[in-house]
């Protein structure tokens, strides 16, 4: 649907979203009210469905329109008190609205959505509640015809009935598209849209017989369009209003409650005249409206709004933006007062600027001072006002929870009451959006794990109905959100036992932990609170994800729990992400900004206290702070690591002792743990404007962004959590486990890699990532041919150059044996073999790479694998040394080896839906990949051949025209050149069977569309070797 006018579609989506925003709560309120309905509320929901129906009809979104129509029918009956909104009915409505919302959010895909389930359920309600004689009407068709004419329309009697109930008149209006429409400068499309906006169009038909054939002399004489519509317009005004002659309007009357099936009860009456024979009187119908053009300007003049007049002159297809990113909100409604205020401030700013310029021209220092002050003032106000435009009430997120809790309670057979407060707390839009998922998870957890079954609650003397409180409030420039329940609380011992069982921590570590620390283990990846996996939660993904999400928003999370009394989860969030108060510090004479939210306290240890207060535990330094040992990290060292400088082995303590200077420590908290960051100097705090890091800096760890300081210099913003990760400092270590270094290895964040182990001589072992290896061929030493001083073998009809590691690296030469192995690599489209001797082995190991001791050309470093020192081959460097031009195009990263996962990497992306193509492409590009996209498998295949040397990975949709994803994969795999190119299949839904089928063909991985994080991480793993 790329051709829809983007702007119109967007405004439709936006408007529909607004309509849908409060629906859930309204429906729940309606449900509570039962038979005693609040008419205004029902009307509101009805209108929402109605407007969406209208809009969707206009946009050609048939499925949305149909579903909205069915919903509207049911709501209409609730309104007229024919249906009691029981929880059953409301349930069906809620589900239907859910689907409606999904479809609206994905409007471009909506026509393919199957809504039968809902339409059947909704029709079920309507017919179940209808008086028996009306029941049949839902499916009963009636024919409507002009007097003495053939039937024009066949419509559901129910629709006519509804119109009557709404006190609408039903008309058949005959428009002549040539005279009434074309000559008024309208197109049929814009006309119909306009009409659908004003009245309820039930059906249309064209009397094609009246058009004539190609043999007529006049091009086209008339084109009668009969529209069956209902409207509250009175018969007297109808003709004028719609710009047609009196004769063209026919009102439908008839006792709709009659059981008569056919048109016997209907008659087209008043105005009585027949529809004029258009051929005979071609000019007549247009005369009346032209003579009285002022009667109803809104119909007779083409409306100026772009929404309703699809102007013929605009060649829509030429507009380059092919899609709207429909799922993310791209526009925002802003209070007009706020805009006025902004305008005012902008005006003031201009005035102040003039003042400043004048003062500067006169060189009047005191005037300049005054002007500067004014600008300062105006800027602060402007900043505040602009921030306000981004502010949204948190109620936008909270609103969905009554529904969530209601559904959960009934699914779990529990009684739960949710109290929400602080709906009107405003927060930055980005944060509000990011909050939805973590909060949902937490609320679900509370309902699922927190609140006990009614029986259990009764036994423990609590009321059967569990309580969940959701609170938001401002505190100290931050927003606090609390989710608390009066459930069973979290048992820290049970939790730590579970963590031990899962191998996440050791018993020794647990012993040293406080209850709070034990509970904090809930945030460890791979931890799930539930005893058993339930439908609702407990799939082992959860709290760690919640935490990561909140970290991203700059939030902090904290759990308080008392066994038997309940749990309170507190989240602290900044008001906005764009401007944050920060502490400026410097190290190595560079200034850095530390977000204030992370700063707990500042610590200055005078030189003479350093000896006592800084201690060395294993290889970590800690500071003694109020009876607690706090690990400290040296910012200088961490940054040196980032720059790959020679790390200095001196500890901070030694440095400080040597120089006799005091030590400045910033105690920072990164979510659930704290550490001290040693910096050279502390400066004051500043409000900084966060600028995202450019993508070529994305690889530098430890930074959250950059900012420009008052003096125009750039300062990097430190990311305390990522600094902690760089130092491999984590929660377990904080739990004083640094005393027990051995146990820690198991939980250290180390990357597991698949390595191919091989040898070239008996004494040395080598390893190379399996993913880089194309094939392994067994050959006899006599197969090797020597030509032009190079070793080659015949390989698949071609010649494969062979190399030994000893040609680059200083290692033992290849053993003299008859049976040899050739490990085939393919780098940048060039294939070559590496000579080795059997046996080879593959292992999955967590590699701790030593980049120092045995590092040399072609060897990345060494690792201990199976108690043996293994040299890890850097195959890129290796081949670059031998054939520099093969890898020239590849960038060199800070570690001095060739990387594949930076800007040069091209991904081929085949996807037929423009929406997904643009969205996925955008986030791939954000990650720094180059993207070549194709609209179907066939095109992708061609592009792959054209760009064979550039493309390092294929991403493909499964369902595509011409050649589908599986077909494409098959083609790729059957071509020798592409046998090892990773293929990721992107799907919306993949059954296990599909996955298996894909894997068989050679699809490397399956990922869900738009699950950005997983997709990116999958791409990174595949490309990172």
């Amino acid at each position, binding site marked *: 649907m790329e051709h829809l006018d983007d702007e119109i579609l967007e405004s439709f989506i936006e408007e529909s979203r607004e309509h849908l925003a409060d629906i859930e709560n309204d429906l729940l309120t309606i449900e509570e009210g039962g038979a005693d309905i609040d008419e205004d509320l029902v009307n509101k929901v009805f209108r929402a469905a109605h407007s969406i129906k209208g809009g969707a009809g206009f946009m050609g979104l048939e499925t949305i329109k149909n579903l909205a129509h069915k919903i509207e029918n049911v709501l209409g009956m609730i309104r007229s008190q024919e249906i009691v909104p029981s929880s059953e009915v409301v349930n069906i409505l809620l589900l239907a609205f859910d689907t409606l919302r999904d479809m609206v959010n994905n409007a471009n895909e909506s026509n393919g959505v199957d809504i039968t389930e809902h339409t059947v359920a909704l029709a079920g309600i309507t017919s179940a509640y209808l008086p028996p004689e009306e029941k049949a009407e839902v499916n009963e068709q009636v024919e409507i015809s002009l007097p003495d004419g053939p039937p024009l329309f066949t419509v559901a009697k129910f629709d006519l009935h509804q119109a009557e109930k709404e006190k609408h008149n039903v008309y058949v209006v005959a428009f002549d598209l040539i005279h009434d429409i074309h000559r008024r400068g309208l197109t049929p499309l814009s006309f119909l849209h306009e009409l659908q906006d004003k009245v309820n169009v039930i059906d249309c038909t064209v009397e094609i017989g009246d058009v004539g054939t190609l043999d007529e002399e006049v091009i086209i004489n008339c084109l009668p369009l009969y529209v069956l519509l209902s409207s509250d317009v009175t018969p007297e005004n109808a003709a004028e209003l719609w710009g047609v002659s009196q004769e063209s309007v026919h009102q439908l009357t008839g006792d709709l409650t009659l059981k008569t099936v056919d048109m016997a009860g209907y008659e087209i009456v008043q105005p009585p005249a027949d529809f004029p024979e258009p051929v005979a009187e071609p000019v007549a119908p247009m005369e009346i409206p032209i003579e009285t053009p002022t009667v109803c300007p809104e119909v007779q003049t083409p409306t100026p709004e772009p929404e309703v007049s699809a102007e*013929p002159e605009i060649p829509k297809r030429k507009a380059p933006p092919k899609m709207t990113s429909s799922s993310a909100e791209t526009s925002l409604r802003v209070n007009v007062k706020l805009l006025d205020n902004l305008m005012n401030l902008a005006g003031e700013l201009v005035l102040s600027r003039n003042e400043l310029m004048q003062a500067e021209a006169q060189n009047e220092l005191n005037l300049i001072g005054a002007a500067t002050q004014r600008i300062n003032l105006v800027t602060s106000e402007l900043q505040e006002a602009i921030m306000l435009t981004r502010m949204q009430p948190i109620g936008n997120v909270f609103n969905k929870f009554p529904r969530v809790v209601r559904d959960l309670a009934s699914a779990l057979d529990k009684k739960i009451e949710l109290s929400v407060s602080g709906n009107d707390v405003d927060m930055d839009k980005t944060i509000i959006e990011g909050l939805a998922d973590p909060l949902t998870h937490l609320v679900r957890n509370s309902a699922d794990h927190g609140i006990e079954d009614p029986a259990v609650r009764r036994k423990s003397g609590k009321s059967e109905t569990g309580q969940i409180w959701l609170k938001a409030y401002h505190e100290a420039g931050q927003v606090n959100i609390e989710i608390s329940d009066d459930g069973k609380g979290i048992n820290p011992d049970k939790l730590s036992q579970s963590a031990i069982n899962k191998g996440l921590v050791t018993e020794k570590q647990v012993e040293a932990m406080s209850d709070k620390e034990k509970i904090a283990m809930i945030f460890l990846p791979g931890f799930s609170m539930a005893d058993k996996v339930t439908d609702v939660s407990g799939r082992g993904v959860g709290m760690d994800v919640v935490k990561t999400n909140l970290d991203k928003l700059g939030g902090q999370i904290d759990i308080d729990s008392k066994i038997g009394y309940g749990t309170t989860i507190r989240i602290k969030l900044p008001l906005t992400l764009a401007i944050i108060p920060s502490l400026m510090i410097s190290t190595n004479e560079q200034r850095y900004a530390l977000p204030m939210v992370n700063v707990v306290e500042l610590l200055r240890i005078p030189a003479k206290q350093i000896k006592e207060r800084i201690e060395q535990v294993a290889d970590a330094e800690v500071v003694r702070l109020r009876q607690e040992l706090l690990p400290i990290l040296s910012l200088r060292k961490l940054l040196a690591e980032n720059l790959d400088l020679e790390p200095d082995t001196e500890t901070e303590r030694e440095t400080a002792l040597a120089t006799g200077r005091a030590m400045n420590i910033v105690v920072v908290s990164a979510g659930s743990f704290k550490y001290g960051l040693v910096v050279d100097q502390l400066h004051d705090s500043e409000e900084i404007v966060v600028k995202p890091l450019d993508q070529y800096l994305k690889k530098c760890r430890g930074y959250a962004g950059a900012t420009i300081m008052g003096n125009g210099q750039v300062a990097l913003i430190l990311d305390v959590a990522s600094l902690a990760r760089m130092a491999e400092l984590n929660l377990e270590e904080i739990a004083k486990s640094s005393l027990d270094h051995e146990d820690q290895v198991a939980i250290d964040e180390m990357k597991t890699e698949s390595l191919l182990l091989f040898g070239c001589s008996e004494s040395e072992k080598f390893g190379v990532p399996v993913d880089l290896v194309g094939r392994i061929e067994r050959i006899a030493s006599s197969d090797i041919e020597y030509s032009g001083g190079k070793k080659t073998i015949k390989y698949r009809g071609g010649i494969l150059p062979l190399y030994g590691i000893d040609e680059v690296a200083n290692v033992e030469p290849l053993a003299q044996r008859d049976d040899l192995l050739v490990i085939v690599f393919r780098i940048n489209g060039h294939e070559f073999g590496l000579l080795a001797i059997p046996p080879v082995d593959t292992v999955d190991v967590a590699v701790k790479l030593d980049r120092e001791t045995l590092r040399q050309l072609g060897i990345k470093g060494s690792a201990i694998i199976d108690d043996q020192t293994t040299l890890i081959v850097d195959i890129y460097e290796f081949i670059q040394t031998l054939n520099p031009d093969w890898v020239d195009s590849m960038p060199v990263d800070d570690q001095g080896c060739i990387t594949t996962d930076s800007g040069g990497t091209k991904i081929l992306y085949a996807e037929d839906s423009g929406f997904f193509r643009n969205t996925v492409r955008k986030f791939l590009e954000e990650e720094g990949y180059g993207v070549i996209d194709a609209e179907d498998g066939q095109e992708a295949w061609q592009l792959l051949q054209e760009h064979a040397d550039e493309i390092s990975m294929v991403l493909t949709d499964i369902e595509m025209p011409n050649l589908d994803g599986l077909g494409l994969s098959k083609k790729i795999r059957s071509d020798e050149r592409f046998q090892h190119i990773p293929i990721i299949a992107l799907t919306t839904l993949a059954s296990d069977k599909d996955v298996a089928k894909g894997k068989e063909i050679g699809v490397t991985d399956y990922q869900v569309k738009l699950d950005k994080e997983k997709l990116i991480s999958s791409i990174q793993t595949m490309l990172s070797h």
Partner: protein
Amino acid sequence: MSEVIRENETVTIRPQSDVVASMASEFKGELKGLLDEGIRDLTIDLQGVEMVDSVGLGVLIATHNSLSKTGGQLAVCNVSNDIFSLFKTMRLDKHFSVTAIEEEACHGTS
């Protein structure tokens, strides 16, 4: 001038501009020419056509009417989304075959 593609029995005509009043006369002439040749099954390919106005619509219907007289059939294909919804709303698809442009046809399948 519209492009005319003849393939076995079926003839496809592809107007090179929007089907609107300004070109209707010429287009009608071309269609009439084809019908006079005795063509029975005609496909009008609306690829690239963004706009069909009332007169254009009339020409399409007239073509249908002429073809029905001789027992032929009209098919309109590669109809852009807007126009497709117009045809649908006006129930013209009940009279002759209307197919949306291909990329539309596969929407929602993935």
